[in-house]
């Protein structure tokens, strides 16, 4: 006997029906409540997930990152590769929305311009925010050209200074006077897609190998398990370094990019293969899978109709927890100078700039890509946690 189900448990909410001992044989129970119990697996998962506050907030944050990554050119006000020697290490400008002039108040977004002062002894340039120089901003500003989704040529940007020549550095400028904000936006695109593409490749490998090992077992299972154990026993950083060093140096940035994701997923699939294999083994013992076989289902139908739906949610969970690991791995490689190379921009490449302690003292905003990594990885881990709790809505 178990304790009575508390009211806030999902079981109680979906309208449990008590057994009705008074019922005679052949009679239909009139008290069966027909208003509940029609929720599908995904509806139950969504409801459980939505109770995980932190995961929901994280999902919003991640959605913002994904939006930024997809519409990078539109979000970025400046060309990330545009060098402006005048504004080397220019500090971040604060964004103001209300314009207070002699005529009164108005909604007019603007930033203040810089005045450059040169210290006579050190010959060092320092930027001072000049409140007299107002740089007004317009929405849907037409300036430099880019290709939306890499296909459609356009020059519309979310926001930009009215006169394109004016400096607009929300997150400051780097060593070459390039806009950190725009670079971060483009870095998001690369870093997130490396994570995603890497996980998708791992997933394909993992599901096929793990699924076959779990369903058919035998020698194939034994061989793959030993292979996985071998791969997992290799120290990752030296292995990546070796593989990255083996890449020809004359490859184009695009080729390097794909090579890096391949290297990352080469190790990443092992974890997912284990998850899939474990689910297959567990499901093989379920009565309802045996029942499906006795119903006359073929191997394929048993797998596709009865087993796969039971572990898709688990796979999504495992994958969502694997993405941040991928991103961190890419960052680590690029930071060491072994992964992606300039002119490709990723968070790791951006952080390379922040390797020098003296530069950091002058321009701490170069560390902002690190903050982006922390936020993205945390958000994805929270989402993964939320999904893991919601993944099996039928678990007792």
């Amino acid at each position, binding site marked *: 006997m178990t304790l009575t189900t508390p009211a806030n448990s999902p079981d109680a909410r979906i309208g449990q029906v008590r*057994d009705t001992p008074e019922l005679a044989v052949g009679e239909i129970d009139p008290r069966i409540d027909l208003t509940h119990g029609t929720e599908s697996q995904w509806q139950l998962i969504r409801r459980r997930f939505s109770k995980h506050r932190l995961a929901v907030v994280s999902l919003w944050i991640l959605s913002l990152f994904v939006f930024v990554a997809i519409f990078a050119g539109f979000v970025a006000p400046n060309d990330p590769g545009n060098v402006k020697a005048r504004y080397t290490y220019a500090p971040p400008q604060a964004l103001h929305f209300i314009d207070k002039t002699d005529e009164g108040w108005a909604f007019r977004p603007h930033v203040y311009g810089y005045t450059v002062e040169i210290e006579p002894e050190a010959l060092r340039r320092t930027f001072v925010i000049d409140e007299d120089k107002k740089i007004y901003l317009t929405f849907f500003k037409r300036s430099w050209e880019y290709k939306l989704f890499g296909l459609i040529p356009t020059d519309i940007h979310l926001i930009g200074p009215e006169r394109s020549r004016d400096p607009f550095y929300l997150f400051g400028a780097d060593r070459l006077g390039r806009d950190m904000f725009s670079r971060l936006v483009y870095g998001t695109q690369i870093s997130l897609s490396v994570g995603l593409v890497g996980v998708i490749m791992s997933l394909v490998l993992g599901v096929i190998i793990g699924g076959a090992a779990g369903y058919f077992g035998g020698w194939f299972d034994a061989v793959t398990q030993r292979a996985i154990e071998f791969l997992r026993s290799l120290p990752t950083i030296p292995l990546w370094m070796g593989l990255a060093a083996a890449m020809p140096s004359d490859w184009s940035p695009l080729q390097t990019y794909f090579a890096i994701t391949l290297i990352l997923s080469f190790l990443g699939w092992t974890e997912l293969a284990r998850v899939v294999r474990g689910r297959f083994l567990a499901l093989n013992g379920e009565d309802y899978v045996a029942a499906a076989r006795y119903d006359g289902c073929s191997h394929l139908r048993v797998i596709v109709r009865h087993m796969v739906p039971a572990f898709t949610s688990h796979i999504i969970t495992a994958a969502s927890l694997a993405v941040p690991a991928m991103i961190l791995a890419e960052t680590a490689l690029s930071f060491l100078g072994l992964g992606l190379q300039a002119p490709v921009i990723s968070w790791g490449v951006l952080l390379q700039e922040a390797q020098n302690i003296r530069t950091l003292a002058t321009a701490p905003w170069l560390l902002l890509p690190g903050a982006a990594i922390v936020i993205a990885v945390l958000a994805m881990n929270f989402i993964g946690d939320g999904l893991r709790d919601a993944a099996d809505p039928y678990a007792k």
Partner: protein
Amino acid sequence: MTAQTGKTVLEVRGLSVAFPGRKGETTAISNVSFDLNLGQTTCFVGESGSGKSVTARAVLNIVEPAVIKAGAINLVDVEAGQRIELSGLNPDGAEIRAVRGARIAMIFQEPMSSLSPVHTIGEQIIEGIMLHQDVDTATARDRAIKALRAVQIKNPEDAIDRYPFEYSGGMRQRAMIAMALGCEPDILIADEPTTALDVTTQAEILKLLKGLQESHGMAVMFITHDMGVVAEIADQVVVMLHGSVVETGAVDQVFHAPVHAYTKKLLKASMGLDEAAHGRGAASSDEILIETHNLSLAFPSKKKLLRKPGSGVQALDEVSVELRRGEILGIVGESGSGKTTLARVLMGRFQPQFGEAIYHTRDGVAKDLNDPATFRDGQVYREMRMIFQDPYGSLNPRMTVQQIIGEPLLVNGLLKGAALRDRVGELLERVGLPASAMERYPHAFSGGQRQRIGIARAIALDPRVIIADEATSALDGSIRAQILDLLLDLRSELDLSILFIAHDIGVVRYFCDRVAVMHKGRVVETGTAVQICDAPQDPYTQRLISAVPIPDPRKRHLVA
């Protein structure tokens, strides 16, 4: 027996427990009152969810996350004449901890999970003794050995240093009892202590508990859903329904002059050896559907590196049974007797090493069930269907009832679309569920209703044979009776033959025409249900039958 026998040691008055939730509270038990007397056993009986376990936990003040809303629990120290009110104490405080284990001890249903697997039995008993008594380790160890001897564990000096996995289920439950009695408590709470055990082991444990109660003079609060067990050991009976006490009284009065309608229904549902068989006396035909001859199957012990393969487990040992057309054949045995293995062999899951198993199809072809190729064309699976034990695990939670019941019709290419829908509706109504239930997922149904869905799936293909593997053992008494009656009904209507695997002799007597008793992989006796139950020939069958509790306190035979 001590001089204190019969004196009240615990008074519970108006006890209510509720689970706090976001949308208000859910009441687990309300206004429960009872007394426990020294030297007497009070049985709490009711079906799952009636609040029996919550009541027991409330006495120890361990109901978290629920809270005790109202009522008083007075623990009386009979010798000193003092009383302590337990419900008002801090659940984590020192006062209540001094009571738990020392004055009120508890034993649980699952002897597997209530013992720590990483400590020896001795360490666990000694810990309890040293927590509550001011003794040194050596004395505690002596007392632990004494306690193990008291629960009739052989060689207690040796057994004390063993780990729980080296004990059998019955021995673990004995060890739990030894642990509970280590501090000589006034009250022993036993929460379904024999439910997970085989019937012969259950009889031994009941006898042991009764004996210990007499020698220690303690009050026993015994929770069970089995009216047979109640009749065997109870002095007082408390009947619970939906969190309330509906009837209280002396055991003889409750069984022979029940007042509340629910008590009467519980008694009616507790089909025992006494109950008449369903009495159709149906002359089953001589046509044989399934026959096995000398089936033997041994599971080899796992091949280990550098070790000779051992003998392994003989799951089936020369099993010969036959299922005739129109009959219900019961396969009875305790856990590990090989009855489920037999069902799996017939369904093609395992291939035996020796012997043969033959199924005669509708068109008179003999199919060899030992050959995996037989099952490939699906004909055997269309004519021979299975009902599973676990109503929760046997229905795919991700499919609607319509998809579940329609699956065999669909994959065999018999029906689709609207015709399939209509047929599923028909099947649902046939098993006593509304056709509109087909839109829903299994999680919306209770255990009994799920088992009906499983039956609808089994009869969907118009089968000839149904193999029911413990199909009713996960259900409460009255629900079980309904499912059995439904199967009896379907049997005569659809001309079914049923192979019914069970461990519950009462169910077998009520439901089956013929019975084969299995013990350690062998069929020790075969005969009609009445013959096996009333005049068993084989010594094992006799032992099995005599261990079954009879739901009548005037016919006590286990603990007398």
